[in-house]
């Protein structure tokens, strides 16, 4: 928070004059990231750095995630106010009784790809029969299952699902024939390791029509009820941040680079990540003010897949799962 105060004095004083005339103290909001600080969350970092949150009278603390952080638990326990989770994950948590709602949908398209090395000869989904397919398990395995079924494979029998770690070593070490990768990170990790794009077969869930919605902002139901205005402002600022990030990618990568753990990643990597994220958050045909909105078709598809593969046991109550009033801003 001190960072934004020093780096964007103009923006914050201007905001102070117009938006919060009574100079109320900033309201604190904690936002839990799904993973370590990186360009996947560029919108949030941009909103913070450019003073969009402050303009709304909010002081945001960004809480990094990690392999042992379970976003829904963090939100439910009140450790944070808003979390970046996956929409499929939200549905399953709701199905298990956790009173969570989604406030906005950050990514509109699936980032997941299945990768295989050309050398394995797996150049069509049908060739994945009896192969070891890596997935991160949890709720994320279900679009893999849907993908298999769509391609005529029995997801229970015809493939061997293997849990994939957060490194791609299993893929490199041939412990996996097919690996899951996000287009914004693992795919480039593979490329950076020296594998050529031409040596890879890439399968896209979206193209197969089995994509589930990913990054979404969630909060606890009663927190939203009590802090509706705050939620509206936080979401609005975040989406403003995303638009800014998409439009000023070079600048925002620099902002993100200030928050990543020094020495663990390169600017180039984050630049690529933001470039890919931009396509997911504001896909072609999406307007600025649509960023964060829920596309009914994607939402229902996600819920349908979840139900079909037993991720959730009862049909999702989508009107309750999504608090549409937040994006509408009233």
């Amino acid at each position, binding site marked *: 928070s001190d960072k934004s105060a020093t780096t964007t004095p103009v923006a914050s004083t201007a905001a102070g004059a117009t938006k919060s005339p009574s100079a109320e103290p900033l309201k604190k909001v904690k936002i839990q990231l799904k993973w370590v600080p990186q360009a996947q969350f560029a919108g949030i970092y941009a909103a913070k750095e450019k003073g969009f949150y402050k303009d709304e009278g909010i002081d945001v603390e960004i809480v990094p995630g990690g392999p042992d952080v379970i976003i829904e638990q963090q939100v439910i326990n009140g450790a944070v106010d808003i979390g970046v989770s996956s929409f499929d994950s939200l549905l399953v948590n709701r199905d298990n009784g956790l009173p969570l709602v989604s406030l906005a949908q950050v990514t509109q398209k699936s980032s997941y790809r299945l990768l295989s090395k050309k050398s394995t000869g797996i150049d069509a989904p049908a060739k994945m029969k009896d192969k070891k397919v890596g997935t991160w398990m949890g709720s994320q395995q279900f679009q893999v299952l849907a993908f298999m079924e769509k391609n005529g494979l029995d997801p229970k029998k015809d493939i061997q699902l293997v849990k994939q770690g957060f490194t791609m070593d299993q893929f490199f070490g041939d412990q996996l024939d097919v690996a899951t990768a996000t287009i914004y990170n693992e795919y480039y990790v593979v490329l950076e390791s020296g594998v050529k794009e031409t040596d890879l077969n890439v399968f896209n869930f979206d193209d197969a029509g089995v994509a589930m919605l990913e990054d979404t902002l969630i909060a606890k139901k009663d927190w939203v009820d009590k802090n509706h205005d705050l939620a509206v402002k936080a979401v609005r600022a975040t989406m403003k941040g995303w638009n800014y990030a998409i439009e000023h990618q070079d600048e925002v990568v620099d902002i993100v680079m200030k928050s990543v*753990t020094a020495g663990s990643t390169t600017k180039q990597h984050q630049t690529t990540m933001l470039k890919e994220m931009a396509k997911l958050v504001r896909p072609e045909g999406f307007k600025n003010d649509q960023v964060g909105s829920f596309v009914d078709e994607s939402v229902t598809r996600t819920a349908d897949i979840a139900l079909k593969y037993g991720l959730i046991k009862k049909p999702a109550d989508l009107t309750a799962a999504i608090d549409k009033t937040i994006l509408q801003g009233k």
Partner: protein
Amino acid sequence: MIKLDRQWHQAAVIACWIAALLLLWEVLAWLLHNVIQVSQPDSKLPYLHKVITSLQDNLPTLIKQGFTTFGNAMTGFLIGAMFGAALAISMSLSKTVEHTLTPYMVASQMVPIIGLAPILYGILHDPSLSRIIMAGYVTFFPVTINSLRGLRSVQPEQLELMRSIAASTWHSYLKLKLPSALPGLFAGLKISAPLAITASIIVELMGAPDGIGVLMVSSLYYGAAQVYMFWCTVLVSIAIGFTTFLMLVLLERWLTPWQPDFRESRRGGS
């Protein structure tokens, strides 16, 4: 004079060991890269000299993150050690307490942090307090087990002596049981201190802004380009663990000079 000599000697021995191990590392790495020619040799065991180069390049970062982790670890360690010792004392007070608490203590160690953390957050609603408690939670067990052994193995005659002078429970702990449990306590602490590094790294994985653990996970996540960084973080965590261990070794020598191993040699001078 003699003492100093001995300490220098010890330092030299340790230096030799470290040198030997590093050499072994380089040789193994060479074997992996050139003789056995495994796939992805760098992620199995990279060349040490490359790791060291990376260590030099990233030294400021590593030192900064290392200190963060070290600080958190020490907080957790102190809490864990105190809690562990307190638990050992209460268990030594009565067999009933021991029998009652032992299963819970053992069971508690089976609950992975990932299961415990949400509940802890749910109870405390305070992330920093929760983290400290989690770090302590991972470290207390060895301290309890070893201190309890120490407390329970007081010579019966020494206990009788304390009874004969009607020493209060407080006194018999202060003047007899604690001093004679100190060697055991230190054995436990020496196991726990490096473990506290692990604990604080685990806690960092629960969403900390920085620390060696964050660096470790990130460099794994960002893949082969960061493999040397990953091994640097492993080296740093080992180095911190080693430092805490050595600090305890010195503290033990200073606080319990009567232990047979620390006594002046019985052999006559010159």
